[in-house]
C-alpha cells in the first residue's frame, strides 16, 4: 500500500467519509412518520355559525408594567384547576430592558383570571445560557406529551427585533400551577447560518397526531418569509420547511383542513396588503403559495384555528390602515371568509386592538388580544346549544 498514490488516497478519503456517514446515522433516531394534524375535541354537532359571546373582560396585568403585548393561549388538561394559561410580554415599554414574560390562568372554580406573575426573566435565562439576552418578546406556549409546558420566546441579541432568535424554554417546575410555574432554557433554535438571526415566533403551534407539533415562525431581516418547524412529542426539534416564496409574508397561523392539508394565513408587510395564504397537502413537507385572500391586512398579525372540518375561525384587523378594528370571521374552505363577530371597533384610528390569539377550552372559543399596547383583553364564545342542535349544517357524527 502506497499512501502517496492518488488511488489509495482517494480510497482512504471515501472510506473516511463513509465512516463519518455511518457514525452520524448511528446517532440518529428513525425519521418521523409523515405529520398528521389533529384538531381540538369539539362537540359532534359543532358549528361556528352558532357561537355566541359568553364573556369578555381584561386580563390582570403585573404590577408596575404599563406595557403589554403579544399574548398566547394554552388550553390546560381537563383535570387541571385552570382551563387556560395565557402568556405575554410585559414591562415598562415594548422592547424595554425590564420586559419579562408574564402569565395568568383562568381558574375553573372562580371563573376568573388569577393575578399575573412573571415566569421568565432575560437575566436569569442569560445566566443559564452563558450569553446575554438583550430583550424578550412574543411567547408561544405548547404542552408536550408528558404535560410539560414549553415556551418559545423571541430573544434579541444586538439590534432590534430583526436581530432576534427563538429561545426554546421548557417547564422546570414540578407542577404547572401559576404560582409554581418556572422555565429553563433548552436551546436557541438553530434556524439560520447568519449568526442565527433573525427568526421570530408569534402564533400557536399546530398539534400533530403523534403528540408533536408544527410551530409557525418567520424571518424578518429586510426580507420576510415564513417557516414551519416540526417538533416531536417531547419537544425535540425535527426540522424546518419554508412556507412561502413571497418576501413580505410573516407571522403565519396554521389551520388544518384535513390531517395533511393545512393552510398558512399570514400578515402582509406591504402597504395596502391582504391576508396572504399558502397551502401544504403533504403534512408540511412542501408548501405552495395561494392567491391572497380578500381580507385586508394593515400589516398586522392574524390568529386562526380550525375547530372541525369546514369550520375555521380567523381573528384579524379589518380596518385598511390601522389596527382599530378587530373582527372574527369564519370559513368553510379557508379561502372565502365571512365576518361573524366584531370583536372591537375603535372610535379612532389611534385605537389599537391587535395580535389576536385563539384557543378551544371548556367547550368555548377563547380569544385574547392587545389593547393599545398597554393591556390585554379576552373574549369567550360558546356554542348556542339550541341553535346548534337545530342547525342542518353542524358537524354531525
Amino acid at each position, binding site marked *: 500500500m502506497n499512501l502517496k498514490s492518488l488511488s489509495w488516497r482517494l480510497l482512504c478519503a471515501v472510506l473516511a467519509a463513509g465512516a463519518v456517514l455511518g457514525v452520524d446515522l448511528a*446517532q440518529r433516531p428513525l425519521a418521523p412518520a409523515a405529520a398528521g394534524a389533529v384538531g381540538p375535541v369539539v362537540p359532534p354537532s359543532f358549528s361556528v355559525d352558532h357561537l355566541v359571546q359568553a364573556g369578555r373582560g381584561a386580563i390582570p396585568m403585573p404590577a408596575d408594567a404599563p406595557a403589554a403585548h403579544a399574548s398566547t393561549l394554552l388550553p390546560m388538561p381537563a383535570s387541571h384547576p385552570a382551563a387556560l394559561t395565557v402568556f405575554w410580554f410585559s414591562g415598562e415599554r415594548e422592547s424595554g430592558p425590564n420586559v419579562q414574560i408574564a402569565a395568568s390562568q383562568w381558574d375553573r372554580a372562580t371563573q376568573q383570571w388569577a393575578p399575573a406573575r412573571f415566569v421568565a426573566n432575560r437575566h436569569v435565562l442569560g445566566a443559564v445560557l452563558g450569553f446575554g439576552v438583550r430583550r424578550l418578546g412574543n411567547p408561544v406556549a405548547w404542552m408536550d406529551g408528558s404535560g410539560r409546558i414549553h415556551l418559545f420566546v423571541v430573544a434579541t441579541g*444586538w439590534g432590534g427585533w430583526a436581530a432576534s432568535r427563538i429561545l426554546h424554554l421548557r417547564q422546570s417546575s414540578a407542577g404547572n400551577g401559576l404560582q409554581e410555574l418556572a422555565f429553563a432554557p433548552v436551546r436557541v433554535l438553530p434556524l439560520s447560518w447568519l449568526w442565527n438571526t433573525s427568526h421570530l415566533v408569534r402564533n400557536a403551534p399546530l398539534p400533530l397526531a403523534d403528540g408533536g407539533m408544527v410551530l409557525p415562525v418567520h424571518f424578518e431581516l429586510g426580507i420576510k418569509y415564513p417557516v414551519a418547524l416540526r417538533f416531536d412529542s417531547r419537544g425535540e426539534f425535527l426540522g424546518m420547511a419554508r412556507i412561502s416564496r413571497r418576501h413580505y409574508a410573516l407571522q403565519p397561523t396554521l389551520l388544518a383542513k384535513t390531517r395533511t392539508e393545512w393552510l398558512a394565513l399570514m400578515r402582509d408587510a406591504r402597504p395596502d396588503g391582504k391576508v396572504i395564504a399558502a397551502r401544504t397537502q403533504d403534512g408540511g413537507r412542501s408548501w405552495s403559495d395561494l392567491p391572497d385572500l380578500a381580507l385586508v391586512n394593515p400589516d398586522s398579525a392574524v390568529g386562526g384555528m380550525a375547530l372541525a372540518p369546514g369550520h375555521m375561525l380567523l381573528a384579524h384587523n379589518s380596518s385598511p390602515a390601522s389596527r382599530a378594528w378587530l373582527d372574527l370571521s369564519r370559513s368553510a374552505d379557508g379561502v372565502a371568509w365571512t365576518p361573524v363577530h366584531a370583536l372591537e371597533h375603535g372610535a379612532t384610528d389611534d385605537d389599537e386592538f391587535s395580535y389576536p390569539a385563539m384557543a378551544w377550552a371548556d367547550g368555548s372559543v377563547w380569544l385574547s388580544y392587545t389593547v393599545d399596547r398597554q393591556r390585554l383583553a379576552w373574549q369567550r364564545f360558546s356554542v348556542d346549544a339550541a341553535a346548534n342542535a337545530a342547525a342542518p349544517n353542524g358537524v354531525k357524527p
Partner: protein
Amino acid sequence: MNLESMAWLVQWVSVDSPVLPGPWAMQWWLHLGWSVVLAWGFAALGQAWPPRVRWAGAGLVALWCWVPGLYSPTHWLGMAFQAPSISSVVLCAWLLRESLQPSRRVLLLPSSVDRSTLALAVLGSIAGWALLLDSFALLPMSLYAWGFSPIAPALVLLVAGLPWVLECRDGALDTKAWVAPVAVLVFVALRLPTGNAWDAVLDPWLWLLLQGYVVRAAFRRTSRLKSVH
C-alpha cells in the same frame, strides 16, 4: 435502483431527524470557543512582546472568557454572534500554538499562499455566499436545513479531504488544510455548536477571513503576472 436502496438514500439526505447538542455542551463550547479565539487574538496582537508575557496574557484572556455573567466577553460575544464554528476554534488554536513559539511569527494572512489552502478558502467563500443567500431565502432550496442531514458532514469531509488526496505527489500539506476535516470529525462526535454541519465548519467571521485570504492571493497573483510581463 430498487426501493430498498432508495430508502437508504432518502435516510441519508433526510433533514427531519437532526441530532442537536445538549444545553451543557453548548454552554461549554461557547466558553471554550471564545476563550481560544480571544487568546489567539491577544497573542497575535502582542507578537512584539516577550513570549512569557504573551503566554500569560493569552492564558488570562482565555480564563476571562470563563467568568460567568456580564463581566465576561463570552456574555457579549455570545449575545451578538453565538458560538464560533469548530473550524474557527481549531484554526485559532493552531495559530495560537504557533504564535506562542519563541521566535515564530505567524500571520493570519501569510505572504506565501499554499495551493490547497487557497482551494479550500475559495470553496469556503463560495459556500458562505450560498449560505448567506439562503439565509435571505434567495435560493430555490433550503441549504441551511440540508446541514442537518446525515450526508452533509460526510460530503464536507470528502471535499475538505481533496487537497490531501491531490497533494499526494508533493508530500507536505499545509497544516491549515486539516482544519475543516478535523472540524467535521469533532462535529460528528459532539454535534457542536448547533447540530448543523454548516455551523460547525464555517461561521460568518471565518467566511469573511477566507474572502480576505482569497482576495489577497488573487491580488498577489495579478501583481506577479503584471511584473512578469
